[in-house]
């Protein structure tokens, strides 16, 4: 599924211009790293790509749909079925087991619970946590928690995966494990956009967008 930004700007209340006239085209199946110092507008771009936020001006098209004119319900539908998020802070629910955390990722698709749990188990197996199904987040290591979060994002087989510094809270070894899991997903044909400030991690991606002060300063390939 393709994502396309056309002259997108985002201004926050108080006059902070987080994005200035950004235009970028990410075709379906692309794996893109977004690199830049903090405050360069990476996360803002990701939330706009993920339809969690609307741009102040410009156009956002996800899979050919103009999201700027869609309703809250339509955007929620898009996120529920097609977009998977991975956050730096994991955002797992402490009271739920790994399976239920992953199953909650598909809650708003309207799928029955039994089916969601089935898909959740398969997704956890896939990220190598088949032996941790009924563990609560606090019983898991940081790397395992992030893999649960990745399983939650991929269990519904989204067309787009958006990851915001997924290795930011992890040591280098677990970080490498998380990245390899994410790279494997690319083989499914899902579009992957990953934010990082680590140039080494970005180097493993075929396409790199360098950002500074709310603008894409370099679109690097190969």
């Amino acid at each position, binding site marked *: 599924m393709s994502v396309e930004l056309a002259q997108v700007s985002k201004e926050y209340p108080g006059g902070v211009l987080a994005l200035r006239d950004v235009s970028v085209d990410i075709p379906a199946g692309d794996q893109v790293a977004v690199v830049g110092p903090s405050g360069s507008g990476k*996360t803002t771009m990701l939330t706009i790509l993920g339809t969690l*936020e609307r741009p102040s001006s410009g156009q956002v098209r996800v899979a050919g*749909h103009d999201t700027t004119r869609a309703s809250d*319900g339509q955007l929620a539908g*898009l996120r*529920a*079925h097609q977009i998977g*998020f991975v956050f730096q802070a994991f955002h797992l629910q402490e009271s739920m087991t790994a399976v239920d955390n992953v199953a909650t990722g598909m809650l*708003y698709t309207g799928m029955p619970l039994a089916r969601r749990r089935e898909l959740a188990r398969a997704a956890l197996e896939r990220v190598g946590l088949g032996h941790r199904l009924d563990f609560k987040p606090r019983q898991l290591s940081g790397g395992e928690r992030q893999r649960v979060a990745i399983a939650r994002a991929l269990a519904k087989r989204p067309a787009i995966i958006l990851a915001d510094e997924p290795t930011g809270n992890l040591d280098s070894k677990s970080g490498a494990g998380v990245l390899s899991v994410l790279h494997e997903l690319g083989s499914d044909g899902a579009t992957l956009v990953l934010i990082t400030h680590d140039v080494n991690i970005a180097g493993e991606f075929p396409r790199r967008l360098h950002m500074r002060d709310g603008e894409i300063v370099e679109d690097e390939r190969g």
Partner: protein
Amino acid sequence: MTDMVLPGENVPAHTPPPDTPTEIGRARLPFRELIGVALQGLRTRKLRAALSALGIAIGIGAMVAVVGVSSSAQANLIAEIDSLGTNLLTISPGTDFLGNSAVLAPSSVPMIKHMLHVENAAPIYQLTNANVYRTPFVPAEQTGGIGVDAASENLPKVVGTTLAAGHFLAGVSQAYPEVVLGAQAAATLQITRVSGHVMLYIGNQWFVVVGILNPVKLDSSLDSVAFISLPMAEKYFQQLPEPSEVYVRSTQNNVTSVANLLPATANPQDPSGVSVDRPSDVLEARAAAKGQFTTLLLGLGAVALLVGAIGIANIMVISVLERRGEIGLRRALGATRGHISIQFLAESALLAAIGGAFGLGIGAGATEIYSAAKHEPFIVPLYALIAAPTAGFIIGALAGLYPAAKAARLSPTEALRA
């Protein structure tokens, strides 16, 4: 440029292939899942949920207890009235046209007894110049508030009471000085049994106590009276055989018509001077008064409930602030604003409904303890079984409105950053 395609809309056939917008399903949250999510939210914060539900439980419990206790007391009183009968009437001379005290003729009693629909009638004759003492050495002014009445043999049966001890005035009492005490009179004189020739000094004459009455619930004024027979009253106190009051039992279905005819029958010359009462009216008024009293207590229960509702609203507002991360995550997972607000609304309503159900238990328990202690029937009105949790649910939903709206307004990105 193509717009977003909603389910059910046709995808335009001429759109170029690489940009074909795929149909995207809607974000959904089935009702069953909503309940699961709400329960999960409550389970995560058990202590807090329990404490805020307690506020509602106490309010509902207080209201259920008030309704239950008053229903039990009312049921008890109504059962008592039914067992005593509502067909007892009393007539007394009252005052005549000129305001002088009237008298009932001795013949009025047989006249009343012969009336259609009258089952029985028992006169009493109040003695104005006699007092009761244990011995002649008791100072004359210490009367104990006990009056002396002459009564006919059938008085206990007509007024619906029984004897606690001994027997009532019988045929032999017409010829010998015998006395029967009302319940209060016996208590005042500290006489609890009739064996061993207990004597009382009435006027200048000793009387033997032969019986003690149980309380007369329909007319408690009879409880503080000592009864002697009319011939004895005539002999020792020169009592005129003019009834001061006549107790009349009519058939159950003709109370009103008998009551209407009684004045003219008792005193054909001056019917307006005769007053007719129905003692059970007093008890019925008391039963109704118990119902009135509950309104005030229900108001107090409602105040407790309001405080509980504010407590829930307060907790939910805090919960929304604390759970910004969860709200942001759910939005990212595809929840609409509506899904977020309905989740918080459901949590709040469910919490209060559980509180209401517990309150029903508390109220029923309090009623059970009260009615067992008072030997009254245990009654919690049937409507309370449904009303208590429903009231909780509605209160919770109202209390959750503001927090739910607040949660829905939260920007998802801001929440995820927090």
